[in-house]
């Protein structure tokens, strides 16, 4: 069972050259499955977070639910959505992956939106009200912009996790680059597995980098503190 013993190298480089088309398709599909949840998550988390700050009693139960979802194994979540959206790749079946991952990204983003809004220093909020900012204007022009770094920090965590988790979908035929895991495993062939793992890590690092850059561009006013995630 050990391919290495047969003289097979860990990575057969020619394989990559032969399969660039497949790799490209899979990569694009992988990104779609991984990044749409983050987008949907942001769209839902921002209003939800605003509500939790406005109505304080909403937050403890919301946080509790968020924490529970954060800890749920993604495979189990995917399985629970199968009856509604089906198995396999493309079309409606993609939602079997996208929806659970959206719930997961919400579990990261909602607390971050709340923390970000709460990070607005009190003197700033008071000054804005005292200068005559209405509640909505204050939210949009003062509080949300200041909350951006914290929200993006959450988006980074969610994006990296999401890109990694999509590959689990291979067990229901929709794992993006994860397809290559099974491909390699079933043929005792390490190359596809290694290539797809590396690609997934690269995708995660690139997404992280893009988000960090976005944050730097959006918030020229923030001092960079520690440079880690």
């Amino acid at each position: 069972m050990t391919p290495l013993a047969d003289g097979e190298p860990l990575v057969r480089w020619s394989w990559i050259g032969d399969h660039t088309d497949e790799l490209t398709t899979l990569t694009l599909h992988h990104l779609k499955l991984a990044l749409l949840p983050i987008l949907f998550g942001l769209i839902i988390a921002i209003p939800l977070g605003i509500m939790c700050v406005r109505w304080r009693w909403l937050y403890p139960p919301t946080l509790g639910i968020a924490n529970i979802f954060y800890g749920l194994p993604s495979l189990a979540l995917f399985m629970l959505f199968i009856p509604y959206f089906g198995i396999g790749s493309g079309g409606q079946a993609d939602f079997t992956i996208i929806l659970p991952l959206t719930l997961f990204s919400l579990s990261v983003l909602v607390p971050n939106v709340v923390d970000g809004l709460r990070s607005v220093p009190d003197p700033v909020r008071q000054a804005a009200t005292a200068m005559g900012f209405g509640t909505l204007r204050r939210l949009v022009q003062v509080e949300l912009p200041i909350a951006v770094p914290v929200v993006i920090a959450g988006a980074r965590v969610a994006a990296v996790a999401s890109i990694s988790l999509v590959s689990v979908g291979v067990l229901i035929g929709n794992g993006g680059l994860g397809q290559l895991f099974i491909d390699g495993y079933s043929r005792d062939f390490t190359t596809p597995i290694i290539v797809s793992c590396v690609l997934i890590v690269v995708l995660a690092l690139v997404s992280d980098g893009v988000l960090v850059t976005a944050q730097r561009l959006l918030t020229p006013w923030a001092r960079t503190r520690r440079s880690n995630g």
Partner: protein
Amino acid sequence: MIKFDGVTKRYPDGTVAVDDLNLEIPSGQITVLVGPSGCGKTTSLRMINRMIDPTSGVITIDDEDIRKKDPADLRRGIGYVIQHAGLFPHRTIIDNIATVPYLLGWDKKKARATAMELMERVGLDLKMAKRYPFQLSGGQQQRVGVARALAADPPVMLMDEPFSAVDPIVRKSLQEEFLRLQSEMRKTIAFVTHDIDEAVKLGHRIAVFQVGGVLAQHATPDELLANPAEGFVREFLGGEKGLRRLRFNRELESMPDEDATGEVEAAER
């Protein structure tokens, strides 16, 4: 002129922050509200721009009940300076100063031009216009806070311990420049502080509050130092020793000085 008429602020748990306050803050002058923690001076100040609403009583500005206006509209016509400036960290200095003009819909160019003028008046280097608050020192941030409050040229200014968070040397120069500004602008100013020295130095009139929200004495600095009310006020001023020190400092301040600032100060008194 700002007038408090029988104003009381009582909280649901029973605490009385301001107790039946009757006070007139004359136009064009600085009235200092001074007292220890819990005396209601800040609460009273924040009732003027309706950040807090009284439980009973009426507050009028130039004989108009402040409740008649929409709170946001009211506030756009009142300058507000607080202890830690509360500058918007995500806006440049010049945009911070121009905040209220932008809110009022001024032309952007005009707003920025006004902001630049104000930077000069409060003693800020124009090079800082495009910088962000985190790049400025505490004293510089406070100057920006004052400029911001002045931007739309409001007739009334509320100041809540604006110079307390900086070191004594910076505080002294801020106080002196503030007096110079006021001599030019003649705004109606309500100024809160816990520091009696600052009160005597800056106030045309001083309102001494005691714990429980009670106005203990309201007088000019000279009257206050000559005839402090018995009990709390005398103690707050530091007793016999404190009074002597305050009177001595006051004489020192009003002595003719070589530079222009000193002369203006002497004329003020």
